[in-house]
């Protein structure tokens, strides 16, 4: 497995001309996902920022076969691709379903739960930018408490983020992992591993969004790193029930170094209305989960 950027395959599947905003974390992640999965991949995607990344007809910067589908049906579309490819003797294709947090945590949950329960042979990636970005930064159930969005404009969101990863773990997928666009090697390795596993593979991908979160475009990588270094996002994988911290998170567990969440929150305009009490509550939530995950990892 590649651990250094120099070891990654040279072939590019995302050519110049993506339509995402400047500084978007999504193309960084997508580039490495496709490098890991290779040309015999079919992507299915709903309406979201990824659709925009794929460009407008008749041109696309993405050199991978892809199928656009309706907002709530990504995993159903993937089930159809898997069934159609199998019955026509092309099981050597990897079916990749990739949707945003709105298209997963909210509207896509039914189709995804169904496909996972059927143990459909596909990889589902939820790239999580923590709001409905494509429609203009509306709150989703993935939006964290304290964030201002265009539908929580005056009083920041009060409810914490839905623990969707646990919901997916309860489906006992063949493979489950979390990763972040700021750690391409961690991300790449997880997709290489996922590619060779049969059954449902679910990957939660944290993606910083400068436009929706309110930070300078030059801070995208830094913001993703801060998310991990504060343990707001924790990198791990669950393989056949075995839990393992990976990459930077494993490192942090070993060294005991974890930054305060305020360092992550401060750099983003969406959190500017958070009260000190809310910041404290957020820190407590992060600490509690970090301890739980350390315990699961036996560290």
């Amino acid at each position, binding site marked *: 497995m590649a651990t250094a950027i120099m070891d990654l395959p040279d072939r590019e599947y995302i050519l110049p001309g993506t339509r995402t905003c400047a500084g978007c974390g999504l193309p960084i992640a997508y580039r490495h996902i496709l490098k890991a999965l290779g040309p015999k991949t079919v992507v299915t995607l709903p309406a979201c920022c990824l659709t925009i990344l794929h460009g407008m007809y008749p041109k696309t910067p993405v050199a991978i076969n*892809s199928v656009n589908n309706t907002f709530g049906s990504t995993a159903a579309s993937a089930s159809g691709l898997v069934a*159609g490819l199998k019955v026509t003797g092309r099981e050597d294709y990897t079916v990749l379903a990739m949707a945003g947090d709105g298209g997963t945590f909210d509207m896509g949950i039914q189709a995804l739960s169904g496909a996972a329960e059927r143990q459909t042979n596909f990889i589902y990636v939820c790239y999580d930018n923590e709001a409905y970005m494509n429609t203009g930064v509306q709150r989703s159930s993935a939006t964290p408490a304290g964030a201002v969005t265009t539908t929580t404009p005056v009083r920041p969101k009060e409810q914490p983020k839905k623990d969707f990863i646990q919901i997916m773990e309860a489906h006992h997928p063949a493979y489950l992992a979390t990763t972040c666009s700021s750690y391409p090697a961690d991300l790449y390795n997880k997709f290489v591993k996922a590619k060779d596993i049969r059954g449902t593979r679910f990957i939660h991908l944290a993606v910083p969004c400068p436009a929706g979160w309110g930070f300078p475009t030059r801070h995208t990588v830094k913001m993703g790193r801060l998310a991990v270094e504060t343990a707001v996002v924790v990198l791990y994988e669950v393989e056949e029930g075995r839990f393992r911290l990976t990459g930077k998170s494993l490192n942090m567990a070993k060294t005991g170094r974890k930054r305060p969440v305020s360092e992550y929150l401060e750099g983003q305009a969406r959190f500017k209305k958070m009260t000190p009490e809310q910041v404290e509550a957020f820190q407590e939530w992060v600490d509690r989960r970090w301890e739980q995950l350390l315990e699961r990892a036996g560290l």
Partner: protein
Amino acid sequence: MARTKILTGNETAALAAKMCRVQVVAAYPITPQSKIPEVLSEYVERGELDAEFVRVESEHSAMGVCISASLVGARAFTATAANGLAYMHEQLHWAAGARVPIVMPVTNRGLGAPWTILNDMQDTISQRDTGWIQLYCMNNQEVLDQIILAYKVAERVLVPVMVCFDGFRLSHTMMPVEIPDQEKVDAYLPPFEPPYLLDPENPVNINPVVLTDPLPGADGRPCPGYMGFRRRLQEALESALDVLLEEGRIFGEHFGRSYDDPLYRYRTEDARLVFVAMGSLASEATEAVDMLREEGIPAGVVGIRIFRPFPRRALREALAGVQIMAVLEKAVSYGHEGALASEVKAALYGLNGAQPLAVNFILGLGGKDVKPADVCEAARRALSFSGPGEVPESPIWLSNEI
């Protein structure tokens, strides 16, 4: 050798799908079609049908599975009714826009609220504008034949097809059905040849965002904007009428039952009063016609087999010069009248002196029994109007309801 079996509409639909060698089946229960996927699951589990059987968690997903399976070249099938069809609505548009040749039987059933599991046609009529071909069956033989025909046509014009038949009245009623030999079906319906195959070296982005105006592609040639794609869908449906009739004629050469007329006609030659109806109602109306004729009233039936694309010219020819037409409908465009009445009247626009007096009857909703006597009553009401001024503006509800 063809053999005759006594089958329900649902068993017939499942058998037809098997004989069409469908490759992907998406299954979700809803009365009155549930038996179709049940029978198909038996075929698949017994190894009699080589298909991927996907037990989805909703009708929205059922259509999602079919769309994507079809896009990668598999012959896809699902069935539904009523609220299941309504739940699919977004996907119906997507399937037609994606030009995937899915065939889907719908066992016609009323829509809630309030709940009914029984028959009317509100479900499919409400999906009229989704870009699907809609065929309506009068009996179980037609269920079998139309499903086979539907795949042939769908795969030629790349438009999905709904094969509609009345819930319970056909879906649960045993009728003799002549089952053709499998080899004959294979000869009529060869394997699905998708318009393109996935090629990793020539990747495509299927159904992306399309802008309003045409744009040049990589080779500099202009590619359609949104309206260009939509116009092509309209043209495909317009051309589908001739294809349906041509394939219906070829069907007759193979199986001895020809479907080269978009209309079913019963004693129309000298008819002064013509009932216009769809599905099993058209067949039931023939009994009333015989009764009326015994009373000396020259009545006839025009049954509409193909509702989309709409057989405008055939209807114009069939109804020109008829004195009165009674459009019998099991669906309503609420606040107006039955959609079929509006459409038939529009088809006759400009016939001037030859235009029949049009009277619209709503009947049989939510399984309400329609007896020949009810249809005769409709005839008498229609005949009581001596001119357009006397026909009520709103449709006449035929029922003894409070």
